[in-house]
């Protein structure tokens, strides 16, 4: 079963994404900000990361930049999820190491199609 880490400071958003992903057959872990995400991602090899941008302590860009620097961990893909959809933000997201960009609030179908795409599950 593919293992996904959902990173968001809002508990409701984490629960929403968890429900969608679990229903689709993935197993899900959660982190409340970039630091907790790093603590988890450096010891568990997740298959995919779903990353919010604005979070206290360490934001989504900061998490990805730091995560992408790590040499001895599996560099799985990441979807950046954010309320900001300006081009500047997208560029920042990609530069930080995001593979895809989604605008909040997410729709289950779109989320799942992105997830499948990045996990190479598209038929």
């Amino acid at each position, binding site marked *: 079963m593919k293992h996904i880490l959902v990173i968001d400071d809002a508990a409701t958003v984490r629960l929403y994404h968890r429900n969608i992903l679990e229903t689709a057959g993935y197993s899900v872990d959660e982190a409340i900000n970039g630091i907790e995400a790093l603590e988890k991602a450096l010891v568990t090899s997740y298959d995919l990361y779903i990353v919010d941008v604005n979070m206290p302590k360490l934001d989504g860009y900061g998490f990805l930049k730091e995560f992408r620097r790590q040499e001895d961990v599996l560099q799985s893909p990441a979807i950046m999820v954010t309320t900001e959809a300006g081009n*500047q933000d997208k560029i920042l997201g990609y530069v930080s190491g995001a593979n895809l960009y989604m605008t909040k609030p997410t729709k289950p179908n779109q989320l799942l199609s992105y997830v499948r795409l990045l996990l190479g599950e598209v038929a």
Partner: protein
Amino acid sequence: MAFIKKQQSSTETEDERQAPRDFEGLCEELNHADSQVRRWAVRDLVEMPNASSVLVDRLEHENNVSVRTGILNALAQLRDTVSLNGLIECLRSEDAALRNESIEILKELPDEVGAILENLLKDSDSDVRIFAVNILESLRHENVEKWLISVIEKDSHVNVCSTALDLLSEVGSEQAIPAIKKLKVRFPDEPYVCFSADLALKRIEEGSQ
């Protein structure tokens, strides 16, 4: 080679505080190349009158995280109009880390922020309104629920409403129920809004039993 104990001289001698500790000296140190020196200058400036405006100015081009954190903490300590405005300006920054750090700091100033929160909730930038709702989270203010209800009734931006809704599911009472139900009607095509509205309604109902 082995274990040793501290030689008395090794500690008290080297002081980060190099320049004179008067206002001018400290302002100069705010531009020092060494970030440790800048951090100490920030610390000592907090004790001085009129420090807020130099600190706010420095914040704009300070890119060392630890010095920046020091300045934000100092502004929170100073709590005057200039510092407060400086912190609020950070909410508009292009820099996500700065935005989020200032939100955390503003959360610790309930009285000061409470007074201007209504304006922030009406800001033309939807992101600033979201941050304002984030700040509300820790504001133990009697109006919090009222403000949140008015956000989900009136704000046109779905993410501002969602953020307020998240918070209402924690602090909301029966008063909030009609507004939450209406929100579902306002954004019928947003599964997330329906999800979190239902969650909020469930929590409020459970809480009132």
